């Protein structure tokens, strides 16, 4: 029965190492958890505050969330995601909606669209994308300030056909060598505005806490 003993020994050693490595991971996880949660929240909050600067509102936007149900037609999101409310003196002055463009050049372009209660764009930020570096990635604010061009526009300024790249009769710039990516972001922004208009009662309702 020597082979049995050897298997037993090997098994014990393996189990021992599994236990030791698990403890090491668990210990690091517990040790870094607070810091990681803090970093994730800070990154999220930083992005939200870029859309609605701190001096425009008085609530903690990152905590004032609501569920945006899956909506493939306008927002392009396949599963429920988080939206944020922006308040001043308790009144909702804007919302930040998740929007996904599926017609980019390379995979989904995920964005956050900030919309004021008067229907104008407060800001658009591309959260994640895989567009071509150097061409399509100018939708990312770190690469170019192109997304700032949406600010203060709305569904009546410009009207429908204006929501496109200049090359196709719209009012927004395309980039040298890239039309598909900016067009996808422009259309996603327009659809998010349409969503906000259709659901304005729910989004900007007088007292959404009781709803």
């Amino acid at each position, binding site marked *: 029965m020597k082979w049995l003993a050897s298997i037993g020994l090997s098994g014990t050693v393996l189990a021992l190492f599994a236990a030791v490595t698990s403890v090491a991971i668990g210990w690091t996880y517990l040790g870094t958890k607070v*810091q990681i949660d803090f970093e994730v929240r800070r990154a999220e909050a930083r992005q939200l505050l870029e859309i609605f600067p701190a001096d425009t509102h008085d609530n903690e936007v990152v905590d004032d969330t609501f569920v945006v149900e899956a909506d493939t037609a306008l927002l392009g999101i396949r599963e429920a995601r988080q939206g944020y409310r922006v308040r001043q003196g308790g009144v909702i002055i804007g919302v930040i909606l998740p929007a996904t463009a599926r017609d980019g050049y390379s995979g989904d372009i995920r964005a956050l669209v900030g919309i004021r209660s008067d229907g104008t764009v407060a800001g658009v930020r591309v959260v994640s994308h895989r567009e071509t570096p150097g061409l399509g990635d100018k939708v990312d604010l770190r690469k170019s300030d192109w997304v700032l061009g949406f600010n203060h526009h709305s569904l009546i300024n410009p009207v429908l056909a204006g929501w496109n790249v200049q090359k196709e009769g719209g009012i927004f710039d395309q980039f040298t060598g890239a039309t598909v990516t900016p067009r996808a972001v422009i259309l996603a922004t327009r659809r998010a505005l349409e969503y906000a208009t259709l659901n304005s009662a729910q989004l900007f309702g007088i007292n959404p806490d009781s709803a």
Partner: protein
Amino acid sequence: MSSTSYRQLTLNGLWKNNPALVQLLGLCPLLAVTASTVNALGLAAATLFVLVVSNTSVSLIRAVVSDTIRLPVFVMIIAAAVTVTELLMQAYSYELYQILGIFLPLITTNCIILGRADAFARKNAVPAALYDGFIMGVGFGAVLVLLGAIRELLGTGALFADMQLLFGAGAEAWRWQVFRVDYPFLVAILPPGAFLVTGCLIALKNQIDNSLERRARARAATPVAGSKRVRVTGTVS
């Protein structure tokens, strides 16, 4: 520590047996994250750390673990080291963690790490194994950073952009616009550029090796060209 000296280890890790240029291990992260210097540096640091931890741990337990179960044990150690690194990076360098994304956990599958554990660390004492892990990591990282710098320079005309992701707010000013480009040389940043630049680096290394060898051979072949006198005293060995 008699058969392999530290000098030998250094030479191996950095040049003669460089993980990236000679062993051609870990090409996936090498090609994927080297679009900029900061990404390359981040992955280089993470890989270096994992290599040192895994080599040291493997060397520490080399007497306990039998040959039959050594590979699963090594894999467990490496996976744990990578997960710990990932958590630490997420906690203290969150933005870089987001950029490196999937390539951080993928360090587990980097063949250099299992390779060094099995080929070196399990046969050598702790200090030597630690040093081997360190110098192999440096050799790999140096190629990563060089590749990142070349591609960033060719593709954007600048160097050391976005260093604040790694070194904090002060490093934003490190960006150095070497030349202006209206139309960036895109292929350098795209995946094909990674292959092209890596190929050129390997060719350059081989060229240097060849010319060094040729010079050494030439020196060995003609040692007495200048003098025709016959030695008449002493002994000839």
